[in-house]
């Protein structure tokens, strides 16, 4: 009998959840994010950025007179939980548009559901190329796909560094792997020799063995794709082993967050990294957002924050243009998006095998005197790049 009563309770609660919570003068928006677990750092950063954007829009009177009320659901970085959240948002809360989540794995889980249920989904940070290569009509991605993350960096390599060989180290995640594969392809196209291509398990303590091997090969460029603090450990240990190269380059993520410089300190100097955005980016509102974020939370946001912040503005723009606020009209309006946000220009295009993908210039930052400065493309630069870089031995 107990099981029965338990089932009853279960159904009862589901019934309650199904109750509609809509009020007329607000726009309720729930966003799935990893708030616990190993990706929580980025979840938090995005959460704060969403809130900043929503507060700004609400201060101006909201969207069509409706105030945005944000809530956040913890997907824990697990795809099935993210899916639970989205199923709930679509079914129970009747939310007509989904934005958010962080990792590629979770974004893939959400994209499949959203497309099946015909609810538009705006991918904010998930970078895996495959997400927008599935002929999903309802999935839009504002960040460039992983294959384009390093586009700016590659033009920097071509025009300034002109290397003949490269070593690629990457973390064994989908982000790291696809980033490394793309770089390998591009490097071969440029006629470079790929001397080392090695992956490592995220959270590794000691990179010295693998770096010892890199040292023996003497590559011109050492390119590393790391999500998080592995980036600073790599640089610290490169410095310690005095491994010199023409250029140390990072593939966004771990190299582009402020913690990288704070932790690696002098070892971070001269390191360049691909990035999608920087606080000095010359897009309207970029600087203001960065400053606001810093004054509230103590540090500059990385591009993840800018993506989240701009996602709300894209939503505002879309909802203003949409005929009605149901999924079909929102999708149509989103498809027609053509705007410039603090993150950069946003336009969802079908090309090069992608659908509803935003293509944009990616930037290169260099750590100069302990600050991330934008150095490439030169039209965006906030400082002149420093190249060639001094050897470890001659620094001090």
């Amino acid at each position, binding site marked *: 009998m107990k099981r029965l009563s338990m089932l009853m309770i279960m159904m009862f609660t589901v019934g309650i959840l199904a109750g509609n919570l809509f009020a007329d003068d607000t726009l309720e928006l729930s966003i799935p994010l990893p*708030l*616990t*677990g*190993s990706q*929580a*750092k980025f*979840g*938090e950063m995005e959460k704060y950025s969403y809130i900043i954007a929503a507060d700004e829009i609400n201060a101006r009177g909201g969207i069509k007179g409706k105030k945005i009320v944000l809530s956040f659901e913890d997907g824990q970085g697990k795809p099935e939980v993210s899916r639970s959240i989205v199923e709930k948002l679509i079914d129970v809360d009747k939310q007509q548009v989904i934005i958010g989540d962080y990792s590629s794995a979770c974004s893939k889980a959400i994209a499949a559901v959203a497309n099946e249920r015909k609810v538009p989904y705006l991918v904010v940070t998930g970078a895996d190329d495959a997400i927008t290569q599935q002929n999903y009509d309802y999935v839009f991605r504002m960040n460039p796909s992983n294959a384009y993350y390093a586009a700016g960096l590659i033009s920097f390599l071509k025009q300034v560094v002109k290397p003949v060989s490269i070593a690629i180290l990457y973390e*064994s995640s989908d982000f790291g792997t696809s980033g490394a594969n793309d770089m390998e392809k591009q490097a071969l196209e440029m006629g470079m020799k790929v001397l080392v291509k*090695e*992956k*490592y*398990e995220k*959270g*590794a*303590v*000691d*990179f*010295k*063995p*693998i770096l*010892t*091997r890199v*040292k*023996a090969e003497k590559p011109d460029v050492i390119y590393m794709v790391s999500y*998080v*603090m592995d980036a*600073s*450990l790599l640089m*610290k*240990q490169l*410095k*310690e*082993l*005095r491994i010199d190269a023409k250029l140390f380059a990072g593939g966004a993520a771990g190299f582009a*967050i402020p*913690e990288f410089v*704070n*932790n*690696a*300190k*002098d*070892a971070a100097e001269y390191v360049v990294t691909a990035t999608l955005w920087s606080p000095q980016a010359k897009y309207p509102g970029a600087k203001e957002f960065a400053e606001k974020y810093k004054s509230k939370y103590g540090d500059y946001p990385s591009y993840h924050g800018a993506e989240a912040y701009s996602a709300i503005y894209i939503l505002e723009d879309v909802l203003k243009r949409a005929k009605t606020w149901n999924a079909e009209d929102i999708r149509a309006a989103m498809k027609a998006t053509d705007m410039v946000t603090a993150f950069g220009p946003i336009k969802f295009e079908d090309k090069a095998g992608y659908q509803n993908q935003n293509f944009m210039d990616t930037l290169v930052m260099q750590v100069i005197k302990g600050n991330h400065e934008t150095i490439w493309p030169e039209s965006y630069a906030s400082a002149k790049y420093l190249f060639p870089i001094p050897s470890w031995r001659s620094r001090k």
Partner: protein
Amino acid sequence: MIPLEGFLQTLIAGILLGGLYALIGIGMTLIMGVMKIINLAHGELMMVGMYIAFWMFELFKIDPYLSIFVAVPALFFLGIALQKFLINPVLKVDSILPENQVILTVGIGMVLANLATIFFKSDYRSTPVDYGTSAWYLSDYWIDTPLDLSLSVPWTVSFLFAVFITISLWFFLSKTDMGKSIRATAQDLDAALIMGVNVKLMRVVTFGIGAGLVGAAGCLFIPIYYLYPSLGGQFTLIAFVITILGGLGSTIGAIIGGLILGIFESMTATYIGMGWAPVGRFVIFIAALIFLPGGVASLLKRQRFGK
């Protein structure tokens, strides 16, 4: 560069890493040896130790190595409290599978990691000490050296601390009454009871010592690593491997096990590929389980008794 240099540099890295691993493992080997429980919150206890070191550095500019003197007692008492109020009540009850304590330690780990997330945010933290990236280079002392080897300052200091702590522990266990009682409890519970050992107290103290040791490991790790709330899991795994390699409850075994693991991992990374290093870790783990069920300790024993 010649291959020898790479080999030696890898060996150095492996030994330094192994010494630090050993310290993480010793806490667990004690706990598992004495109480036969699988403590899945071990890494989370290390995380707590690291946060103590971090905040001491952040607020009072106290060097992480000095924080050992704060973190060890703090974790000692935390461990005692956990053992007394949570683990003992579960162990006391007769249940179908004694492994139900696993849920308890998972629960404890979850709460610790989550509390850290709530109170300290998920930010990646570190203690950027001045000596963080300094190293000694052979070429600085011997200009024409054919081998350019280097030795990281914080790694070496951490390693020496780990060795020192391990030796003190070994003295404690083999020379003091309490240490002997703990070892007796680990080897034969009933016999220890008959000989008048306060088994209950020993268990509580052991958990405290185990927690304190891993807290110390946290302080030694933070200058060379970084910190975030959910970092515990991977270190729990490493501790398991060392515990099995070294043999349950054996301090010396844990040291040797740690060194074997460190060197083996480094060698795999250099000569096979870093992506395979974790496979290597678990392969020696399973090999040790099968071919050397008592761990390194059993080899040592055999030799001593001339068997």
